[in-house]
Structures are given as C-alpha cells and as structure tokens.
C-alpha cells in the first residue's frame, strides 16, 4: 500500500468529548502537516478516526478494530486512565503501539505504550511543593478533591505519602471524591470553607471533565477566593476554561508541562498553525480555539513517532519502539525534549500557572528545564526496584 494508516482513538461523543475532540483535531492537523512535508518513508499518513464514545469497554473494542481490522501502524488516543487501562490488554495482545498524551498517575510501564503526558513527579509533586512554598501561600492543610477513579486515587495516594514526608499530618489532609459528572458542589465547598478555618488551606483538584465548571462556579459564588484558599488543578487547562467565566477564578492555579501563554517561537508557530487549521476546517467556535498541554503532547507524540519510523525505516512496532528511545523534539513548551531511553516517558518541563481573566495562565513558577519522569513513584512502597522496562 502507498499509505500508512494511523489510528485516532478519542471520544467524540459522551462526557469526555469535551476534552478529547480537540485532541482528535490536533492529531489530524499534525498528520496533515506531516503529509504536506512529504509524509513518512515517502508514504502519506492516512488517519483512521473512530469514536469510542466515552465508553471504556468501547475503547478496547475500537482498539481491536483499529489494530486487527484496519491494521493501523500506531494509535494516538485515550484521555482518562480508565480508558487507557481498558484498551491496554488489546495493545499487548496484538502488539500494537499507543501514544497516550495525557498526564496520568504513573504506576504503569508498558512496552506498547509511549506516555507523552506527565507522570506525577512532572506535575503533581511540583505543584504541591509550590503550594507549600512561601510564594504559593505556605499551605499547611490540604483538601485532595477528585473524581473517583484511578488517576485521582493514585495521584492522591502519592501526594499523601509526599505530604507525610513533609511532615503534614493526616488530620490536615482531607480526601474527597465525587463521581464523574457530579454537579452540585455546595456541600463540598462549604466543607472546604470549614476545613480552612483550621489553618492555611489549599485545594488540590483532580476533578476531571464536566464537574469542573460547577465546582468553580460554586467556589466563586461562595466567596472563596484564590487568595484565601487557592485551588491547584491537574486536569483544568485552557480548553476547559473556555467553558467558564474565568473572572471569579483569577489566581487559582494549574500545573502542566505546557501553557498556551508560554512565549517562544515554536509555540507561536504551533498556536498559529492550530488557529489556521481550525479556521480552514471550520471547526465549531474556530475563532476562540486554544491550545493546551494534551494537545501539545499529541503533537509531540506524532512527530516523535514519525522520527522513529524514519530512523527505523519501517513501521514495524518492535523496531519503532526500539527507535523511539532517545528521540528528541523541539517542543512548543520551549525546550528540546527527549523520549527517555528506558521508560517510554518524555522528559518535560513543569509550569505552574495562575488563571487570568482571559482564561489563560500566567506562569508563576517553572522548572529550569525538562525533568525525567518517575512512572514508579518513590512515594509508593515497593516501587524502589522498578525502573525501566
């Protein structure tokens, strides 16, 4: 054949469509960009888009379809950890290749997966360190608020261990979980308020998807300001903020490896390309499109895969995996970042940003450069010996 098939496995309907549709679009844009550049190994890339509809078992089924039926060379996709976990066995069984672009909880390392989002030490831990710092407000008490699934649970488990190591007592940590799609945060916000009467408090939010808007609205209306009780979120980016009136949120924080507001030529080009693409494809609300971290991670992932294929001179999965280690790419985040030679994760810089009135982030803290991922968090017992694959 004269094309190379590439699978795109993102929910275009259901609750996760909010976050995942733009990843599909970015992937298509990147593929178009690569094709315009002559493709890969002289062949054009042919995207195969499927809709797993925010239904975890469907992720497995669609993954199987992409690999067994459409015979794609690689799949870019999944957002929630649970969807990744459900598709994983299929990738292992059929020896497929998945690029996963979202920050996640770690505790996983699969030969068939490349993780282009952050591991906990590339996002969660630095964010908490910041909150505890003088600049971050010197938080002494922590509300760990999340959606009840594997990513928040595991992340909070790591954070709790981390906080313990910093001398924070269990009585100063409150862990609250709500189901996906939870929309009434009155009681929880009242609880946070009450909890904060016990001392300088910060909220660490791993709320995912739809629940963020009602949470922030409630927070704003209840008068809990960022100067009193700052919230740092790990799943709220520019895309999510498009759906919120950002004014009451000013000062609340998010930690990512990329913000649209980062100023560098690569990023400017990336943003422009995306805006032009949205306009050209007539995407809904094309005039207000934004970029965010998982979009950047998708973009990096596709390019790195292309590089690896060209280096391996084949799309054969094992050879590509082999070639992926050590790939570098000049990313919009301002650094030339590298795929770790052993652990399938990117070395990434960490940024902490405050929400501003435009729904963008002002960077208030950042690492000096990319840091290496620790998929096996040192704060979880028994992980000491696990490192590479």
């Amino acid at each position, binding site marked *: 054949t004269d094309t190379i098939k590439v699978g795109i496995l993102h929910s275009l309907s259901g609750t996760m469509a909010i976050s995942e549709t733009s990843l599909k679009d970015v992937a298509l844009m990147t593929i178009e960009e690569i094709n315009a550049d002559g493709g890969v190994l002289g062949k054009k890339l042919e995207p195969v888009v499927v809709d797993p509809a925010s239904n975890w078992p469907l992720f*497995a089924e669609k993954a199987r379809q992409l690999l067994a039926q459409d015979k794609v060379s690689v799949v870019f996709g999944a957002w929630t950890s649970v969807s990744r*976990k*459900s598709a994983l*066995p299929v990738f292992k069984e059929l020896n497929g290749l998945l690029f996963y672009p979202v920050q996640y909880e770690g505790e996983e390392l699969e030969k068939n997966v490349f993780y282009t989002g952050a591991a906990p030490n590339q996002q969660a831990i630095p964010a908490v360190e910041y909150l505890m710092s003088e600049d971050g407000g010197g938080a002494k008490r922590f509300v760990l608020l999340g959606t009840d*699934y594997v990513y928040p649970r595991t992340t909070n488990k790591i954070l709790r261990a981390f906080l313990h190591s910093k001398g924070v007592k269990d009585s100063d940590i409150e862990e609250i979980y709500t189901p996906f799609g939870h929309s009434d945060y009155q009681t929880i916000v009242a609880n946070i308020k009450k909890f904060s009467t016990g001392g300088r408090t910060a909220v660490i939010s791993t709320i995912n998807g739809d629940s963020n808007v009602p949470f922030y609205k409630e927070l704003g209306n209840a008068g809990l300001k960022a100067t009193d009780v700052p919230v740092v979120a790990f799943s709220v980016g520019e895309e999510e903020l498009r759906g919120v009136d950002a004014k009451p949120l000013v000062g609340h924080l998010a930690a990512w490896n990329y913000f649209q507001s980062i100023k560098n030529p690569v990023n400017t080009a990336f943003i422009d390309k995306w805006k032009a693409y949205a306009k050209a494809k007539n995407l809904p609300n094309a005039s207000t499109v934004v970029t965010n971290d998982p979009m950047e991670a998708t973009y990096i992932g596709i390019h790195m895969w292309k590089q690896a294929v060209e280096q391996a001179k084949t799309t054969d999965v094992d050879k590509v995996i082999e070639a992926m280690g050590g790939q570098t790419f000049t990313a919009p985040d301002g650094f030339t970042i590298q795929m770790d030679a052993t652990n399938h994760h990117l070395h990434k810089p960490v940024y902490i940003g405050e929400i501003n009135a435009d729904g963008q982030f002002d960077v208030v803290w950042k690492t000096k450069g990319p840091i290496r991922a620790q998929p096996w968090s040192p704060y979880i017992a028994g992980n000491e010996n696990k490192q590479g694959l």
Partner: protein
Amino acid sequence: MTSSTLVTTRDHLFRRQHLFSPRAWTGLLIAIVLLALLPLLNLVLPVDHPLHISSYAIALLGKFMCYAMAALALDLVWGYAGILSLGHGIFFALGGYAHGMYLMRSIGRDGVYQSHLPDFMVFLDWREYPWYWTFTDHFAYAMLLVVLVPGVLAFIFGYFAFRSRIKGVYFSIITQAMTFAAMLLFFRNDTGFGGNNGFTDFKRILGFDITAPDTRAVLYWTTLIFLGLALVFARAITQSKLGRVLTALRDSESRLRFIGYDPLGFKLFVWTVSAIMCGIAGALYVPQVGIINPSEMSTETSIEMVIWVATGGRGTLIGPVLGAGVVNGLKTWFTSALPEFWLYALGLIFVLTTLFLPHGIVGLLRRFTARNARRTF
C-alpha cells in the same frame, strides 16, 4: 358442536402446542450452524485469504450474541409480562462481575504490582481480599454466583416491588433507581470492585490463555450455544400456559386475580428467570470483551437494551435477538464510518423505526412473509 369448529380448534391447538414450527426449526438450525462456522474462517484461513474473518469481527459477533441474550431476557419481562425494566443492566453487570472476579483472580501475580491481589486493591492499600471475594478463585463457585447474584437480587427486589403492586412507570423508575444506585456504588473505589476501571487485563480462563484465538473461538461457541438454549427456553416459557398468563398479566393484572391467579408468583418467576438469563449473558460477555465496569449499569446501557428490543420487535423472541444485532452492528459501523455523525444516523433510525415499523424489524419481516409468519415465532 359442528365438525368445522372441532377442526379449527384442533388445528389451532396443535399449532400452539409445538415449540417451533418445522420451518422455524430449520431456520434456527441453519442460523446456528452458519454462526458456528464463522470462527473457523478466522482460525483456519490465512490472514490474507478473501474469506478470512478478523478476530475483531469474531469478538464483535460474540459480544452481539451476549447483547442478544440480554435483549431476549428483557423481552421476556417487557414484551410478554409488560414489566418494563429500565435497569436490566444491573443483572448483566452482576453476572459479568461475578465471572470477572474469577478472571481477576486467575491473573495471579501477573499484574503490575505482582501481588496476589488485583492491582486496584494494591493501590487502595488493601492487604487481603474482602470477604465477598472468598472462593471466587474457584470457577464453579464463580459460575454459581453468576446465576445466584442476579437471581437473588431480582428475587428480593421483585418480591417487594410486586408485592406492593408497583406497576408501570413506577416500576420502571425504581428499577432505574436501583441500577443507578448500584452503578454509583460500583463506581466507588472503596466498594472493592475496581471502581470506574472495573476489571480488566485478564490473562487466563480455566488455565487457557484468554487471548489465544482458539480460546476465543470456544468462548464464541459457548455463547452461541447459550443463546440458542436461551431462545428455546424462552420460547418454551412463552408457548406454555404460563406464557399466556404472563400476557394476560400485562393486559389486565387485576382481572387475572379474580380468576384465581396470583400475579406475584408469575411476575417473580419471569423476572428472576430474566435476570438470571441476563446475568449469564453478562458472564459470557466479560471474557470476550475483556473488561467489565460500572458503565454497564448506566442508565444509557439499560435504555439501549430496551431499544434493541423495541427495534427488533417487542413481544417476539427473534425480534430482540435481531434488534440487538442490528442496532449494535449499525452503531459499530457508524462509529467508524461516520465518527462525527453517527449519532444523527442512529437517532434517525430510532425515529424512523418507531414511525414506520411499529412492530420492529420482525414486523417488517412479517409483512414480507405475511402468510405463514403469524405463529412461527
């Protein structure tokens, strides 16, 4: 008594007392044999052979057959006894979870954390299996649970609901409430069933590699056999006098009381049978799909089951089977062929079906084969 009367009576009675007409038997057998041959096309033929069927297609068909069984179960209560359950997903899921527990334990120490516990228990810092996981490492016990858990739940729930004479939408809504509550419960990680993730990443079933093509084929055939049995069993029920009591129940429950039938027992019987059938379908589904999670208990899933039945033809048995196949087939096809527009297509099909096919697909088929069809299924 005229002789013509006797002839028609006997004629009708004769037809009524046979499980299937000879024609229907033939059709059923041919369908089963054809379906049974498909995995061979996957196993025997080389990948590039034009008749080769991908493992994906086989897995898909296997899944559809499980759905078909669930639809059949739902139709038994809805189509025949008029009990509309908007929460049948719970029985499907419980059957699935019961089998899933066994499959999880068969992973042994091959999980990420190499613990004797499933990974999700490890990240919750659990040291031991909770009591309700006891013995689930025995296949036979797990199979017992597959039948018992949905059965007992249905029995208890049904007993109280039917005893209080809860009917119509009130019943539908409380089934929905029950399933929704169960879904929330199972979504909680603390409940001990893997939360949102549910169970996945199975490795073995009865010692065989669960991903091996021949294991898959065997699972497929098992499902086919169970579906066939379920169809015959459901047919036997609906053809019996009990079947007629059920339809009478659907049409006028109070009248039935006055001629001496106690609706409670009949409803409970068919409701529990349906739940068990649904549970078995769920149990067959899990190893083939490779994951069971609480989304099977979501409102949408249960409503979709109702839609399979309605699309296929409520109150017929082959209808729900066809409905489950056709709706899911279209959904699968649309989600890949028209990933951004499939909801339009599917939605439109539902609307058009109701408007133009009031008796579903079976009604349509009957219109084509009008003459003999009335009593075949």
